């Protein structure tokens, strides 16, 4: 690194100017999807609770799941499940010392993104 480059180093961290590598992106969204999944728990339990009450509750829960607005929410939850699971498996592979080289870590991250896109297409098909 030249002396000039050292001088030009930013004095603060501007999140908008940090360009994360693909491995960082999928890792960050492991956290984002995890938070979304935590927030979805009351919704899941609400529907489960309704569905076991009585006949009307069961039919109501099924009907609710067919409304576009509810489908949008559960579509996002499904995507979060898929991403959290595939990046979670990635962490388990790290524990086994697999996928820890830069090359293989990037490959796995692109694979995760590919699975995300596939899941997104399936979710869109389900909503429409």
């Amino acid at each position, binding site marked *: 690194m030249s002396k000039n480059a050292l001088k030009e180093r930013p004095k603060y961290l501007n999140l908008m100017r940090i360009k994360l590598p693909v491995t960082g992106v999928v890792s960050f969204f492991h*956290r984002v999807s995890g*938070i979304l*999944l*935590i927030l979805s*728990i009351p919704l899941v339990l609400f529907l*489960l609770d309704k569905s*076991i009450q009585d006949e009307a509750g069961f039919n109501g829960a099924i009907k609710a799941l067919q409304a576009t607005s509810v489908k949008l929410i559960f579509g996002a939850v499904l995507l979060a499940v898929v991403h959290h*699971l595939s990046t*979670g498996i990635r962490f*388990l592979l790290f524990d086994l010392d697999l996928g820890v080289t830069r090359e293989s870590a990037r490959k796995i991250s692109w694979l995760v993104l590919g699975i995300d896109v596939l899941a997104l297409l399936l979710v869109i098909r389900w909503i429409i």
Partner: protein
Amino acid sequence: MSFSAGGVRTWVVQRVSAVYIALYMLVISGFLLLYPIDNFSAWRTWLANPLVSVATIVFWVSVMAHLWVGGRDVMMDYLKNDALRFSSLCVLGFFILFMFAWALKILLSVTV
């Protein structure tokens, strides 16, 4: 390194619960795709099956343990203010207790 030394225990909890949650979701969704349930009484009968209900209770225990470790990690990483971090952890803790109690109440109320 003792097992009770903070990091190791939470690391194990996170991995074991993750594997159980993944297997449970895989088995349950696979089963429901093969044998779809379309009416109330079949739904209740299925949920009342001891194998299903016990596996589901263990699922919710795993989810709560998993999200305590994960949520705690996220909060400890991003919330630098002591008071805010402490109160957020309290909210997370009570959220977990209430959600688990709710899940347990639902599952125990299903009897044939």
